[in-house]
């Protein structure tokens, strides 16, 4: 098993002792005084909510640095058709929602979860996200949850659904202790819905057009309200489809927030003719990183947006952004080590300490007031753990932080692999990476070669491994503070 595929405990617990450490209030800030105020993620949320999400990588931006999730693909059937999905398509190189390689029985799924829990102490969440709809396969979904809960009671259970069948199952979802549900809601106006959903299967018949979209919309709202009334955390996913719902997502955001959705996650349409989807075949392109961000920003303010979503596949295993699914495929599950709760306890202790240290480092790196207030985007190469610990050339994605004198704020991740950026096709991997870094001023990574560094410099992007293995936020802030001093001024957007 390749050690470097998941955040090894060692990479979080120890940093390379040859690297300069950023520690203490004066570290690298050149003696600028810093205050140690509190702006931790948990302070922004009611305690009950924080307790529910603090180990959930999909719900908590902070947790996604430390905890792993896995999806089990026990739900192949679906009850609606979306224009961005072709259920016939299945490819092991794919990495997107609705696509999966290995369908499992409930018993196989439980075995797989046990095997992963034994190897991956970071595992906190098991979700059923498809490859169809979790609630179109409700009996199998719930049976799977029963088996997992009996074996590993500490694991949180969650499911994703299009919402059509949701109102019929809210009671059971609550009774089973599932406390996180994701609903994909792309519209609250059926005339827009009719452009996204060609048909639904509901109450023993197929519905099309406006009728289909109206039923789906009403069921989604009813299900959302019923879940939040029971205190179940609901995340809403919306697929940003340029030209169809890009302007409309503001309305969706209002509608779902007013009904108690806890998070609203805007995901880019993944569109490629090779996927055989209606949108792919008819040339409907996905949004560029900047278009996606513009929509996310337009919803900003008090909307809690989840900007760290990776749109992982329905059998994904690992921390967000990585997928160890193939290591745990059925044919490899012949012999598994038993689950050892001590390993997880040890990991939880490490994480608790790391979270405190990372927060402290961030606070210490806060800069004194400055007049200049141009926010800059910094791209981080990380394997997790909240540190800059990924080689530039190995990074399949970058975490983008917006840095001002006020601090460093995570705004999104951008992928450099798997599927093309902005619906364009380009065989040049570096070109894909450069497109993903559009608008970014600096790249902080564990290591970078001279050639890519020069190529980035041509684009006005500074790349440095100066902050290798350090905490992300603190490093970004320090880079920002020192960028003029080191003569590395980047053109700002």
């Amino acid at each position: 098993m390749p050690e470097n595929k998941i955040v090894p405990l060692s990479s979080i617990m120890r940093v390379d002792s040859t690297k300069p450490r950023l520690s203490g209030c004066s570290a690298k800030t050149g003696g600028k005084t810093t205050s140690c105020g509190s702006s931790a993620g948990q302070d922004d949320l009611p305690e009950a909510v924080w307790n529910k999400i603090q180990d959930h990588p999909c719900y908590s931006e902070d947790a996604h640095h430390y905890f792993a999730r896995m999806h089990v693909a026990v739900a192949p059937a679906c009850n609606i058709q979306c224009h961005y999905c072709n259920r016939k398509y299945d490819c092991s190189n794919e990495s997107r929602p609705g696509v999966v390689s290995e369908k499992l029985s409930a018993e196989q799924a439980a075995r797989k979860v046990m095997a992963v829990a034994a190897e991956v102490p970071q595992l906190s969440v098991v979700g059923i996200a498809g490859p169809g709809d979790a609630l179109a396969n409700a009996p199998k979904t719930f049976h799977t949850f029963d088996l997992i809960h009996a074996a590993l009671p500490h694991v949180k259970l969650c499911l994703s659904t299009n919402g059509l069948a949701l109102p019929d199952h809210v009671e059971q979802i609550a009774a089973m202790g599932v406390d996180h549900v994701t609903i994909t809601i792309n519209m609250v106006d059926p005339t827009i819905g009719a452009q996204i959903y060609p048909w639904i299967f509901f109450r023993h018949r197929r519905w099309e057009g406006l009728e289909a979209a109206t039923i789906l919309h009403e069921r989604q709202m009813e299900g959302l309200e019923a879940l939040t009334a029971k205190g179940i955390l609901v995340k809403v996913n919306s697929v940003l489809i340029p030209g169809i719902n890009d302007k409309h997502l503001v309305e969706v955001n209002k509608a779902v927030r007013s009904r108690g959705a806890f998070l609203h996650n805007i995901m880019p349409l993944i569109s490629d003719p090779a996927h055989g989807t209606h949108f792919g075949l008819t040339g409907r392109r996905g949004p560029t990183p900047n278009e996606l961000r513009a929509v996310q920003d337009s919803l900003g303010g008090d909307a809690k947006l989840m900007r760290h979503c990776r749109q992982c596949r329905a059998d994904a295993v690992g921390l967000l952004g990585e997928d160890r699914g193939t290591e745990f495929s059925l044919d490899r599950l012949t012999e598994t080590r038993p689950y050892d709760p001590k390993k997880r306890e040890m990991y939880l202790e490490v994480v608790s300490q790391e979270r405190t240290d990372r927060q402290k480092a961030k606070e210490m790196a806060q800069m004194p007031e400055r007049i200049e207030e141009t926010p800059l985007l910094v791209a981080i190469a990380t394997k997790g753990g909240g540190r800059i610990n990924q080689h530039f050339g190995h990074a399949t994605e970058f975490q983008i932080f917006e840095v001002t004198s006020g601090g460093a704020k995570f705004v999104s991740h951008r992928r450099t692999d798997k599927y093309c950026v902005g619906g364009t096709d380009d065989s040049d991997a570096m070109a894909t990476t450069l497109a993903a870094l559009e608008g970014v001023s600096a790249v902080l990574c564990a290591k970078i070669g001279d050639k890519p560094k020069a190529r980035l410099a041509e684009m006005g992007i500074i790349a440095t491994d100066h902050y290798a293995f350090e905490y992300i936020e603190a490093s970004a802030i320090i880079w920002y503070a020192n960028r003029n001093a080191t003569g590395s001024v980047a053109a700002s957007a």
Partner: protein
Amino acid sequence: MAYRIVEKNCTGCGACEFECPNKAIKEKGGVFAIDAKKCTECAGFFDTPQCVAACPVPKTCVMAF
């Protein structure tokens, strides 16, 4: 009369199996097949054949003859 599933198109999702009122649909090697002897085209149960309405792939659940 009965319906049948075009094997090469079937994704194996099983949406049809849940809906069949005659329990005529079973999985066989990753894809689903309709037992023509049990299939009544949903007569007496529903206005439209459920497997056809539920199947996500066009031209995959079709008349057997």
